[in-house]
């Protein structure tokens, strides 16, 4: 059963305004704006990214993002095709948005 969806207060680019209010339902709400329905596979990556961000206060760029997943979950998931399937087009950016990380200033 997919998690419930909660509409979040997001900015013009779809990023969460109040980072502290993030929860799974809000993540689903952000993802819905990009037509993504979140599954446990998504949340596995989302929590990994949130833990990484809490530790380092930096959202990784695409290649380091793949490497981070690879180190934590192995090559089956730590590859760009898998991550592209979950978070299409720009995985690191989209995953960061859904995970409630701050909007990077220069990726638009």
């Amino acid at each position, binding site marked *: 059963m997919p998690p419930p969806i909660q509409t979040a207060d997001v*900015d013009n680019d779809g990023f969460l305004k109040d980072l502290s209010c993030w929860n799974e339902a809000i993540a689903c709400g952000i993802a819905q704006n990009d037509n993504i329905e979140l599954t446990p596979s998504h949340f596995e990556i989302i929590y990994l990214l949130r833990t990484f961000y809490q530790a380092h206060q930096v959202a990784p760029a695409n290649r380091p993002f793949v490497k981070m997943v690879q180190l934590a979950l192995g090559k089956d998931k730590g590859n760009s095709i898998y991550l592209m399937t979950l978070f299409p087009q720009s995985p690191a950016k989209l995953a960061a948005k859904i995970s409630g990380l701050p909007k*990077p*200033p*220069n*990726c638009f």
Partner: protein
Amino acid sequence: MKFSLLVLASPYSQQGGLSALQFAKTCLDQGHQLYRVFFYHEGVQTASALQCPQRDEVNLHDQWKELADQHSIDLVTCIAAALKRGILDEGEAKRYEKDHFNLNKPFELSGLGQLLDAQINSDQLITFA
């Protein structure tokens, strides 16, 4: 020769911005190419069109603009460093839901990739702090 400049100095608080300007003019006088001027750290304040020094003082924004208009120089301001210091163009003002903006052409906001590009593609990148 192809030069680029990195301006870190805060305009009006430090001399670096004036030194950079004079260096740029001398470069061009000598027939060198000025590939890009990149504003970073406190240097991003140079890009604000709203600076109002006294009439008998140099207006750094206007001087760079004049030079860029004459010689079509790339004036790039680091977007991350600029946004947090309140230097926004019209697009960013909309994005961040602000009523005002203070950065116009020929200054532009862009990422640090532009500094890397300047470092790689110039013969010399000179830092003014």
